[in-house]
């Protein structure tokens, strides 16, 4: 990135900074929560519904369209 210190760019990260054992529980728990966030914005009360009614759909409706998810 910086042309003034070329030696820094040659550096590599030879070892993984995070072990797979440390990653796994985060993938399981955070992955589920984050996936639900995307589902909430992208599809809830459209094709499928966890909550009844249409308040969630209506609230995030414009974001759903402008983020490119199918709607309507």
């Amino acid at each position, binding site marked *: 990135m910086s042309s003034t210190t070329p030696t820094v760019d040659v550096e590599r990260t030879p070892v993984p900074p995070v072990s797979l054992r440390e990653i796994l529980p985060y993938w399981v728990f955070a992955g589920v929560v984050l996936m639900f966030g*995307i589902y909430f914005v992208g599809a809830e009360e459209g094709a499928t519904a966890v909550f009844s009614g249409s308040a969630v759909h209506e609230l995030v409706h414009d974001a759903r369209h402008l983020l490119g998810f199918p709607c309507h």
Partner: protein
Amino acid sequence: MMRTLLVRGMLVGLVAGVLAFLWAHFVGEHPVRAAIAVEEAAAPPPVPGGPVEEEVVGRGTQEGLGLLLGTTIFAVAIGGFVALVLAIVQGRASTLRVRATVAAVCGLGFLATVIVPFTKYPANPPAVGSGDTIDERTGWFFVLVIIALVGVVAAVRLGRQLHARWGAGNAIFAAGVLFVLLMAVAHVALPNENEVRAGFPPQILWDFRLANLGTQAIVWTTVAFGFGIAAEHAVEGRPLRPRARPLPQTVA
């Protein structure tokens, strides 16, 4: 370390969501309003005394708080997932600097989750689609995103295998060819969904789809740049704001 990366990814995602909201609110809502106006003009006038369509959430809230909520939840999730993917690939599939790995993850993520579905099931403004087909359209959209993500993994694996023999340039080219071929097959195999009725103003559609690409591009580039810096400092143990370094001693 995983916790630090995840928190930083999600915080950068929060910023990305606010920036995407600003774009979506001030640029994206124009074609949205225009599309709603076109549809309302085409709709038959309401019967006096007939059933009135009840608005659950007003347009003002949808264009403001609701839009902000939607873009930030989405962008926080993208930031979090980029952090989770970075933790797996850094030092394993990627031996690049952390910032470069984050940029590659975001570029490929944008390609698989935005560009590929855009070519097959492009976004439509409100009032365009038919509610009857929303189930299957949503289903095929996510099927295509999953195929594209699998395609990215396959292409990266091929590229890494060919790297030693063919060199970086040719390996990247071969990986790109494999990805395009896989996506072409998916494109032909998956059903078409065309929701835009004849006579809908094409300029509104074009403006809306560009606004859609812009919103997503802001999310992904903000995460690529912001999380690239934040993650590199986390991994390499340097403070986010570089301390003033003493100037090298100059010999007179």
